[in-house]
């Protein structure tokens, strides 16, 4: 960082510049999280507004429902699976983009990143159309005589939810890994080559460890939104594929704010734990550590 402390009044100027953003974040990020917690301490049921009561009743009732724990466990398993598989599938893509693509690099990059510009819901909905009982897959299977009746298991299962989420998130997972590989000092791989390491060994000992921060970033960028997803489960999950987000949505739709707040606190705490571990592992401490 340049020695801009020499700028007359720089310290005060920094404070002035950051005052409005800081207040905005305080009012619309920090305070709302506090108010969420306040709602979770309200008595359970349909509550029209915050009252001056503090009770653990909503926690007791919501958390004693065994079915919610099952949904929470399922959500965690789906989020972990989706994040691991998406990162594994995305790594070779990022590697190809960073190291193999030379000619037509821009075209290849654009093709791989274009899905960011397409609608998230469109990408989910496409699979409903493909996998449904009257969907493209079933009709094609029947047309070529492989099956005689539509197969129902494609849709409305937790497997369907996980598959669609993986499809949605692979492009997202590829981005941080690609950015990391892109910044890597390539002479290190050449040095490994010169020292007689075979390509696999060079990859395992040099490239892979150096891309770890990108892998962690990708993992958490996929896992955290997946924890709070309800659109995918609504579209392709059915009853057995419900996630925590669906339950929260049902609570809010029926105006049972305290119960919804308890489950949202649970969601945020899970994400917070993941985030703290992620920040530790990837060594992110300042804006300069995150490259975009």
């Amino acid at each position, binding site marked *: *960082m*340049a020695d*801009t*402390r*020499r*700028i*007359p009044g*720089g310290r005060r*100027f*920094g*404070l002035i*510049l*950051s005052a409005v*953003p*800081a207040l905005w*974040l305080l009012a*619309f*990020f*920090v305070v*709302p*999280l506090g*108010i*969420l917690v306040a*709602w979770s301490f309200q008595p359970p049921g349909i509550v029209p507004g915050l009252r001056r009561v503090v009770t653990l009743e909503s926690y007791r009732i919501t958390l004693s429902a065994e079915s919610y724990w099952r949904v929470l466990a399922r959500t965690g398993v789906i989020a972990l699976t989706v994040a691991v598989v998406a990162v594994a599938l995305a790594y070779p*893509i990022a590697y*190809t983009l960073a190291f*193999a693509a030379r000619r037509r690099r*821009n075209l290849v990059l654009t093709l791989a990143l*274009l899905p*960011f*510009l*397409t*609608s*998230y*819901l*469109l*990408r989910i*909905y*496409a699979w409903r*159309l493909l996998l449904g009982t*009257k969907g*493209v897959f079933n009709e094609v299977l029947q047309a070529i005589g492989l099956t005689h009746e539509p197969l129902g298991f494609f849709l409305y299962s937790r497997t369907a939810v996980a598959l669609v989420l993986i*499809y949605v998130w*692979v492009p997202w997972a590829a981005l941080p890994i690609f950015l990391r590989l892109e910044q890597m000092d390539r002479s290190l791989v050449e040095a490994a080559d010169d020292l007689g390491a075979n390509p696999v060994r060079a990859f395992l000992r040099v490239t892979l460890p150096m891309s770890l921060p990108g892998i962690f970033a990708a993992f958490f960028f996929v896992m955290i*939104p997946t924890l709070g997803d309800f*659109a995918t489960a609504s579209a392709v999950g059915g009853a057995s594929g419900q996630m925590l*987000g669906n339950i*929260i*949505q049902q609570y*809010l739709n029926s105006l049972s704010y305290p119960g*919804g707040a308890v489950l*949202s606190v649970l*969601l*945020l705490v899970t*994400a917070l734990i993941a*985030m703290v571990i992620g920040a530790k592992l990837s060594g992110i401490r*300042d*804006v*300069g550590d995150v490259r*975009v």
Partner: protein
Amino acid sequence: MSRPRHVGLWVYFWLYIGLLYMPLLVLAAFSMHDSDLLALPWKGFSVRWYHEMLHAPALLRSLRISVVVALLSATIAVSLGGALAIAVSRFRFPGRGVLVVLALSPLVIPYLGLAVSLLMTFVALGLKPSIPTVVVGHSVVAMPFALLLVATRLLGIDPELEEAALDLGAGWRSILGRLYIPLMGPAIGTAFVTAFILSFDELYLAFFLSGSDQTLPVYFFSGLRHPEFLPPTLALTTLVTVLVVGFTLSSQVVTLRRRAAAT
């Protein structure tokens, strides 16, 4: 590309691209399906849903709301995120570290959690969800992207430029106006586009904070339960996607041509 060990990678890459685009192409085809049902058997091509879309006032209203929300929230996110980027990348001041962590945390919060928190805050304050509440929500989640994009650019500025300005007697006002803001230009543009796209496609905050002012994704999502709304929505979303993708590709081609012409 020439090295043989990359063949496997390329096969994988093109398979991935094929799988990535296949569902979207199927969907685009179905938006031109001459049938009331989004299902096979195929009954032929028609533009009836595109025609119907132009006469679906609720759908067009949601598109207008989405554009307004995206423009407003991107403007707020870029102004606040940009100011914060200058502050944290160029100055030391009390609370800087806490502020950086705070400003980056919307990146790693499930939007559903923030959406519920904001909704409950507005309910507690007696405010009804509408366009301004969605704008607030989207501005908070887009701000870290603006901060990162602008800060990365600022951290790349040659410190000698600042020193030269200081030696020439510039104060922070002229350093801001004549050095930072001109150099931030491209990053601000990228940040605005990123924030716009983020807001335009965002479902969870919009779902809880838009009330009766449904944005396009909320309208689309509620269409999952009312199948009769879906075909025109699908047509509109496909059209928007084709326009955005077409615009991006053509701007890519223009940049490449310009670069080729320059060398």
